[in-house]
Structure formats: C-alpha cells, structure tokens
C-alpha cells in the first residue's frame, strides 16, 4: 500500500510538472511556429533563440497588477480561472503514458488511474470545463465577457455531442471504455485511425472546437468581443485562462494519440529485443512525439484557416458532425454484426 501510494504520488507530480512545462513551452512554440509560417523568426531575444521567453512571460504575468472590476462578483471572478485550470489538469489522470516499469519486483504503472470508464471520465472533465469560462465571463460583469462565455458554452455543448458520438464507434469496435486497454489493444500497427478514420476526423474537428482553437475560437474572437470571456482579467487570472487553453490542447492531443494513434505503441519496437524497461521508456518517448505532432498540428491549422462565422459553426456542429457520427456508428455496428455472423 505504501509503495503504491508513493509511486502514484511521484507519477502525479511528474505528470503535473511535465504538463505545465509542455504548456509553457507550447506558448513559445506557438509564437515561433506562427512566425515561421509567416516568414518571420519570432521571439529570439530572451535566452538563446528565445528559449527563456515563457519564463519571462510568466514573471511578467505574476508582476502585473491584479485588477478586479468594481462591479464584478469577487468570489466567482477569482473562481473562474481556478476552475478552468483545475479541469484542464484533471483529464491527465486516465491517460496511459507508457507500459509499466519494473523496478526490482515493484511494478510501476505509467498511468495514474486505469478507470474502467476512462473515456467517460475524459468526457466528464471536458464537460465541466465550460464552467470556468462561463463563471469567469459572467462574474466579470461585462457584456463582451458574457457574450464570450455564452458563445463558449453553446459551442462546447454542441461539439461535445458530436465528440462523444464519434467515440461511441471506437468504443464499439474496441469493446472497452478503459483508456489503458484501448492503448494496449493497438500494439504494433493496429491503430484505431485505420479502422475508424471517419471517427478520427470528427473527433479532431470537435477537439478544435472544445479547446477553443482557431477555426472555432469565437469565444475570444478579438475583432468582435475584445478578449471574449477574459476581457476583464489581468495578471495571473488571465495567465491561468491562457495557460488552461494550452493544457487543454496538450491533453486533447494526448487523448487523440491514445485513442487513435496507438498511444505508447511503437511499431517494430518489440522486434528489437530490448529490455522491457527500456522498451517502455522508448514507447513513452514515442507517445510524446505523437503528442508533439498533434500540438504542432493544432498550431498549423490555427495559422492557416480563418475563423468560422457563428452560424456556420453551429451548422457544422449540428447538421454535419452529429449526423456523420451517427452514420459512423451505424456502419460500425453493421460491420461488427456481419463480422460476428460470417466469422472473419
């Protein structure tokens, strides 16, 4: 029991730190990547090649004056960013970061909790992620914030539906709700993208909407809403909101990599005949490679595609994504039945 608690605590702390560091460095990567795509070189003054920029930004955020508007609801105004941050961090619990390590005869799982309903847990966390934004937007007592919050919530509810429906097909074909098992099933090349491509496309589009990233970043669209739900925030409150967005991006990349791209599985790794521990670590590194790819993809799309109009967003969600996901479920179901029937 003691060893169990200790290993879990260590794992949680490590994941926490890694998440924060990755989120931090996503900010600089975002700026750099945007610059590269626009034939610029991006921030390059703080440290060699601008590598210390996130630290400088963090320090700046901390040093700024915290302004709470006079007519804001004080308690909820402070709660908003905290909630956003907490929910963003919570989802990392069920993600399997790698195969288990063996230290002596102690087995250390690289997953904090292998809930047998891991996918549902992710959905639960995602669905309460709206509250941080809504509460913050409302508590600011500002029309722009409120509009941003309303946009965020309606957008998230709409796309959550399509997102869960798209995963239903995956759950049907894998037959499990546990993230650990889904990752384990995809050893070698049996990645779920190949069996469920449509589901993946729907999922990634919805992930963009859920994380409020660019083609769907209406809640914070500057041209119409100033800053959207975080218009009134300054200092670390704003920092938390911005940070939560990057953590969300990281987590949804990790979820995508786990569910559709084989998680920690690396093709042909088991044929090299390495020690199991080394193999597990390489698998984890490969997993982070996949995550990095998805984060880059998020950014790549951000600097390519312009923002949707609000009615277009809703049309896409309700009239395209959800029917497509339903059709996908239907197809998966029929294929499964046929397979049972003819035994292939």
């Amino acid at each position, binding site marked *: 029991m003691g060893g169990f608690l200790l290993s879990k605590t260590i794992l949680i702390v490590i994941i926490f730190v890694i998440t924060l560091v990755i989120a931090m460095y996503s900010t600089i990567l975002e700026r750099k990547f945007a610059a*590269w795509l626009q034939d*610029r*070189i991006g921030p390059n003054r703080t440290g060699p090649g601008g590598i210390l920029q996130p630290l400088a930004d963090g320090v700046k955020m901390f040093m700024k004056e915290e302004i709470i508007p006079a007519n804001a609801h004080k308690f909820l105004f402070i709660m908003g960013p905290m909630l956003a941050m907490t929910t963003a961090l919570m989802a990392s619990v069920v993600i399997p970061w790698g195969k288990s390590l063996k230290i002596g005869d102690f087995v250390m799982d690289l997953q904090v909790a292998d809930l047998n309903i891991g996918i549902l847990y992710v959905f639960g966390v995602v669905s309460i992620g709206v509250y941080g934004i809504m509460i913050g937007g409302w508590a600011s007592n500002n029309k722009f914030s409120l509009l941003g919050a309303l946009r965020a919530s309606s957008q998230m509810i709409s796309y959550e539906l399509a997102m869960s429906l798209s995963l239903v097909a995956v759950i049907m074909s894998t037959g499990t709700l546990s993230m650990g098992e889904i990752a384990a099933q995809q050893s070698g090349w049996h990645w779920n993208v190949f069996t469920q491509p449509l589901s993946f496309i729907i999922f990634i589009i919805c992930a963009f909407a859920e994380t409020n990233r660019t083609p769907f970043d209406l809640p914070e669209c500057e041209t119409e809403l100033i800053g959207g739900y975080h218009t009134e925030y300054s200092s670390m409150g704003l920092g938390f909101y911005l940070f939560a967005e990057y953590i969300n991006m990281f987590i949804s990349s990790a979820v995508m990599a786990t569910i559709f791209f084989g998680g920690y599985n690396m093709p042909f790794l088991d044929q090299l005949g390495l020690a199991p521990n080394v193999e597990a670590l390489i698998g984890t590194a490969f997993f982070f490679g996949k995550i990095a790819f998805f984060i880059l993809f998020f950014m790549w799309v951000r*600097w*390519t595609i312009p923002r949707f109009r609000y009615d277009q967003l809703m049309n896409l969600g309700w009239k395209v994504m959800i029917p497509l996901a339903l059709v996908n479920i239907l197809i998966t179901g029929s294929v499964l039945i046929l397979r049972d029937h003819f035994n292939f």
Partner: protein
Amino acid sequence: MLTLSNRKKVMEQEKLSFSEKLYLPVIAKGLLITIKHLFKRKATIKYPEQTREFAKVYRGHHVLKRDEQGRENCTACGLCAVACPAEAITIVAAERKPGEEHLYREEKYAASYDINMLRCIFCGLCEEACPKDAIYLTDRIVETEYEREDFIYGKDKLVEKIDQRIDVSKRKIKSEFYQPIKN
C-alpha cells in the same frame, strides 16, 4: 438599373463544387501552402546586429557644413526656414565681428540654428533651398529621446565637427530623376 457612375458590377457567387463543399481537400491545400512557408527564407532583419541597407537617397539627420577652411557656410539667409513645409527651422542671425573670419565664411551667420526633429518630415527642401551649400541631409539616424525638448537640435548637434567632417558627396550627385526647374 441606372447608377450614378455606371460602374456598378453585380457579383455572382459561384456555387461550390463538391470537393469544396467537403472542406477537407481545400483545407489540406491550405495547410500545404502554409507549411511550405516553413522552409522559406525569413524576411526578418535582426536590427541592432544587422542593418538594412540604406537607399542612396536616404534623408536623415541634417548637417550644417563647413568649408575647407573650417568656416561655417550658413549665412542665416532664412531661405531654408521659408522653404520648410513643416516649419521646423528657427534661425537667429548675427553679424560677424572682426576677428571671427576664421569661424564664419559670410559676414552674417546663424547665432542659433534649431531644427525641431519632431516637426521635420525629412523632405529635403531645406537642402534644395540653400544657396550657400550649407545644409544637407545625411544617412544618419535621428536618435530616440525621452523628452520632447531633446528633439530640438541646436547647432551643437547640427554643425559638423572640424575634425569629423561628414561626407555629403552622395547627396550632391543628382539622381537620374532629377530635373532642375526651368524658368
């Protein structure tokens, strides 16, 4: 319909083709275009270390010239101040005393000569107006200051130092586009 200018055009929105309606192929195309720029040469010039090459006709910080013997050319005629569209130049004239011949070339000189660099638009009209070959614009950059007053440059900043002559030969070459006014 009759319109005022007769230039009205009715735009017709083309129907989207099937692949355009699917969005994804078009999005992929867009993504390809952006990713190509990742490998393009960057246009940024890292300023303090690298500087952009100046145009040959660059007009910056003025200089009040001296002649070969080190005497100030300016005779405080005020033509530059009259020509200046921004009214940036203020001159106070004074008469040359005996014994000051080695300082001033003409018998009248500018006791003070101020250019307000915040007003100046660096048009170069002062240079063109000057009959005495006294004022030129150079390719030096006017530095930034914190106070507005500091932008009013007096003779201390404008007149060239005797031992540090400023080369304005480039400004004296008239460009191919230059056409002297005929009257």
